[in-house]
């Protein structure tokens, strides 16, 4: 299973750097026992607001897609980026497929445990759309702002 990460705006296979994972519940029960942990695994029903103040102690937060149809992690990623200010890596784990990666990236994911084989296709899928209508965690200029800019320039 290849790990894909952004290198600039391109998605590329990344070498797996060693991370020490801990599940959120385990860490809350006994933080001292997991002092070495660098990556926090937050389940889909985790209350991220309860641990918001401690997130900066981790370099990676892993969010889960038990199936590609379960979209809770999209909201969780946006909350991590936009509300709790998490600046480290947000990694997608589980059924992480080519045609969902664009949505994940827009919500703030920066690393993907890609469940497919075709990493070139996954990279290409990211570039399938030139514009986006709405703001999200990636700070792509929404179409409405491009329209305003164009009108101002005219």
């Amino acid at each position: 299973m290849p790990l894909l990460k952004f290198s600039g705006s391109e998605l590329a296979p990344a070498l797996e750097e060693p991370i020490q994972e801990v599940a959120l519940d385990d860490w809350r029960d006994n933080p001292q026992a997991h002092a070495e942990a660098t990556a926090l695994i937050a389940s889909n029903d985790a209350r991220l607001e309860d641990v918001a103040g401690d997130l900066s102690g981790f370099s990676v937060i892993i969010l889960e897609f038990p199936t590609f149809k379960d979209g809770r992690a999209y909201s969780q990623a946006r909350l991590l980026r936009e509300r709790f200010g998490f600046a480290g890596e947000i990694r997608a784990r589980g059924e992480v497929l080519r045609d969902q990666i664009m949505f994940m990236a827009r919500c703030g994911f920066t690393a993907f445990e890609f469940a497919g084989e075709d990493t070139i296709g996954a990279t290409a899928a990211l570039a399938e759309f030139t514009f986006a209508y709405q703001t999200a965690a990636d700070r792509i200029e929404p179409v409405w702002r491009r329209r305003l800019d164009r009108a101002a320039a005219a």
Partner: protein
Amino acid sequence: MYRYDEFDATLVAERVSQFRGQVARRLSGELSEEEFKPLRLMNGLYLQLHAYMLRVAVPYGTLSSRQMRKLAHVARKYDKGYGHFTTRQNIQYNWPALVDVPDILDDLAEVEMHAIQTSGNCIRNVTSDQYAGAAADEIEDPRIWCEVIRQWSTFHPEFTFLPRKFKIAVTAADNDRAAVRVHDIGLRLHKNDAGEAGFEVIVGGGLGRTPYIGHTIREFLPKKHLLSYLEAVLRVYNLEGRRDNLYKARIKILVNAEGATKFADLVEAEWAAIRKSEIDLPSEEIERIRAYFAAPAFEKRPEESAALEEKRKADPVFARWLRMSTVQHKTPGYAIVNVSLKPIGGIPGDISDVQMEAVADLAEEYSLDEIRATHEQNLVLPHVKKDDLYAVWKALEAQELATPNIGLVSDIIACPGLDYCTLANTRSIPIAQRISERFADLGGQEEIGELKIKISGCINACGHHHVGHIGILGVDKKGEEFYQITLGGSGAEDASIGEIVGRGLSSGDAVDAVEKLVHFYRGNRQDNERFLDTYRRLGADPFKEALYAAA
């Protein structure tokens, strides 16, 4: 009408080429049907009993002549010469070949149409009042806000894998023609005491297995905050909605499990955290969209038309069509024309390519180039001069599009049922056809008055039986089709869920049952009471008795 700029056009074109690639991967075997399914569903492509079915979005039910001609072209070139307008103002094609679908989408993109988000667990095509922009009772054109929602919800990265599908309807009139109280979110634009316009936000309505009337979680939302508030509702739902059981995954289950007050508190708390972010559109962009919905160039005309009055007096058949099919327009000298897709004994919502071309021609010549699709599976020519009504009627009649039955007993909503659908337990279309034939006499129908019959071929309730004045639900009992009658439902401003009135009936008995119920109503109505009013006044018992006593 809204027109695409290069941003809108680019996104739709890129979507088609993305899907072309996905179809190629499926046809080459790189994708299994299981892997392809979610991708095709995001593009409105279902696999039905006999073939693929492609559902094309008609955003908030508005079409130009050019678009309607393209729909006719698709029916002719890629299908069997017809299409089917749905209860969500969309059109479905029942027989496309998979290999053709990218070409169909390319053809549609030429006229700014697509099949995006007509399926899947995402925010579906937003629906609205079919009389928007023409209705005498609206406070502004609700389609401005529909278009705002369309853009925001298109490929929304956070809300494309919701627990279940999500339907939003918008109205700006007191007479609710968009069924806002039975949608996941219903938005009713109204004025507060200060005279400002804002939205009543209604959440958690819906039909299906567990019907609910929606709860108002906010009486008045200033218009400029619409998107941030919707985003708050959707985020709460995305995180908290049930995902363990397909049948309990709609937002209505969450709202009713939490209680509307607690749900509203969750939304308000989320909204407080995001309302200052850049989700809401700046006023310049809202005004840009609003400009597309500016009133068309209506002529200054007298309210009454002498030519029309002369024809009305001379031709009683025309006069009946006028009474049944035309509605007051907000502009003097104009009328709203309903085009019935419910010929006696026909399939509700079906329309041939030739009929589509005819409607397109009429819209171009007589209705300022606009056509609407209605959630009751009819069409509308929204802006017809009264002077032209006779010519329009003649042309519609020649195409069997002038059945004067709008809102009457034969104006039936029916799901496709077991004739097409993989989910259905029973057929719906033949029941609709037989009821329509039973009440074929048009004078008799008019005398009965408004009566909304809605038929679903299974518990998923796509035929809206819960909100039929008379609802009919098909159930399968050991391989035999039975039909359960519900009474007293309404999807309008007086929304209510119909009550089940007793044991299931055979298909023949179900048609007889409708006749018995109508007979009882006619014997017991007071003044100008509708069937629904009489039912509400008398309650279920006497109707039940009328239905089962003699049987």
